[in-house]
């Protein structure tokens, strides 16, 4: 009985194979392939039953798709934003996984005229510190690939290579993420864990300075420079520079200001001297007669205040291990969360100087 059943199954398989083979061969316009296709289908009918679920886990490689659409699109313009400006006066701390003390050593006492007796009272070493804390921040968004598939946004030129559209979107979000931190957080940021904007991520340098001045820290007393405009820009900036301690003057320092203040200085300089304010051979704008004092416009200062820094004492903290792009799929939606810890502090508050108007609310 089993033999009869096997013969019947074999015959059925052969019959279907010949029929399907003939059909496919006709369909593809190659009747001479009927026998090979039928043979292949007949052989395939002998593949044993088994667990083929592993095939479900194979991720299709769609990377080839991304190159096919870009040819149809024109140039894609991106929103242009500032990057993170970590130039003069800033020291980046890239591995702040726990609050990091920035320890300062000072000598107590001082030299005195020689005499035979011991005079150690009050002499020694003193350590003080300020603590750099970083706070995690995030930017959540979802990408629906079907919105863009088949459109010119499906793939774009990013640098030397073509990138899938979702990578391009994430790259743009990342660029604007950095910009928001560099423009807002590091300046007037005020830490508020329940907040919803870049200004809430961490205390910025201006906020920290305002806090220190409000509690009358004798190591940071604002210089009363007042309002700066195109009729007094040079005089006000020079007054600020000249009011710094001698050790600042010898070491050299950076004065950070808004672009508006920089423009005011430039215009006043031109009016006073009859020629333009030129950078030095390094591209830095040194003040007249102070070749080691540089005026540097930054985006995070938006008023007519001045921020003086010596020894790169503006500490910017982050944690490389916690800078992440977490992406997951929900159906076909790509859920993305960008994360980056941010923190600001002064390494040494004696290396910071502010003008009164920097601290305006």
């Amino acid at each position, binding site marked *: 009985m089993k033999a009869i059943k096997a013969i019947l199954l074999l015959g059925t398989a052969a019959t279907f194979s010949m029929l399907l083979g003939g059909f496919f061969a006709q369909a593809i316009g190659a009747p001479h392939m009927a026998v090979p296709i039928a043979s292949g289908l007949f052989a395939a009918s002998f593949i044993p039953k088994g667990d083929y679920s592993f095939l479900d886990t194979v991720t299709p490689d769609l990377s080839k798709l991304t190159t096919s659409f870009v040819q149809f699109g024109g140039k894609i313009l991106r929103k242009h934003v500032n990057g993170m400006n970590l130039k003069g006066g800033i020291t980046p701390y890239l591995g702040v996984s726990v609050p990091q003390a920035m320890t300062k050593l000072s000598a107590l006492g001082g030299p005195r005229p020689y005499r035979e007796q011991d005079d150690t009272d009050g002499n020694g070493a003193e350590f003080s510190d300020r603590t750099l804390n970083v706070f995690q921040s995030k930017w959540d968004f979802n990408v629906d690939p079907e919105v863009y598939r088949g459109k010119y946004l499906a793939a774009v030129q990013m640098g030397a290579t073509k990138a899938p559209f979702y990578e391009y979107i994430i790259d743009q979000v990342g660029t604007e993420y950095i910009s928001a931190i560099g423009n807002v957080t590091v300046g007037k940021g005020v830490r508020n864990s329940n907040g919803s904007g870049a200004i809430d991520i961490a205390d910025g340098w201006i906020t920290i300075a305002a806090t220190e001045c409000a509690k009358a820290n004798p190591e940071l007393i604002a210089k009363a420079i*007042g*309002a700066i405009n195109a009729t007094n820009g040079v005089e006000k900036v020079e007054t600020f520079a000249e009011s710094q301690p001698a050790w600042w003057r010898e070491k050299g320092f950076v004065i950070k200001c808004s672009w508006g203040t920089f423009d005011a200085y430039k215009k006043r300089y031109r009016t006073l001297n009859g020629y333009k304010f030129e950078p030095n051979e390094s591209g830095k704008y040194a003040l007249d007669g102070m070749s080691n004092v540089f005026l540097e416009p930054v985006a995070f200062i938006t008023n007519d205040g001045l921020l003086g820094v010596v020894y790169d004492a503006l500490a910017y903290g982050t944690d490389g291990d916690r800078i992440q792009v977490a992406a997951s799929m929900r159906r076909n939606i790509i859920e993305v969360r960008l994360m980056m810890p941010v923190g600001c502090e002064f390494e040494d508050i004696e290396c910071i100087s502010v003008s*009164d108007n920097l601290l305006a609310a």
Partner: protein
Amino acid sequence: MAEDKEITGASEVDAPVSKAKADSVTSGKVKVNFGVHIPELGETYSKADLECDQEAIDHLIEIKSKAITILKR
């Protein structure tokens, strides 16, 4: 009685400066926000010092300093 209004923007401060200069900090028309070092006068003032030093306040009003806030009645 009108409430005091804080003038915080530089442009808002421009107009009433000459009038405000005559105001006295002790009369409550100027609020001191924090102490400052005034380079032109060569002096450092705590917040408390400023609150009783009319010359320093006049200077801060003159230069439109944000160390003080002019209260407009």
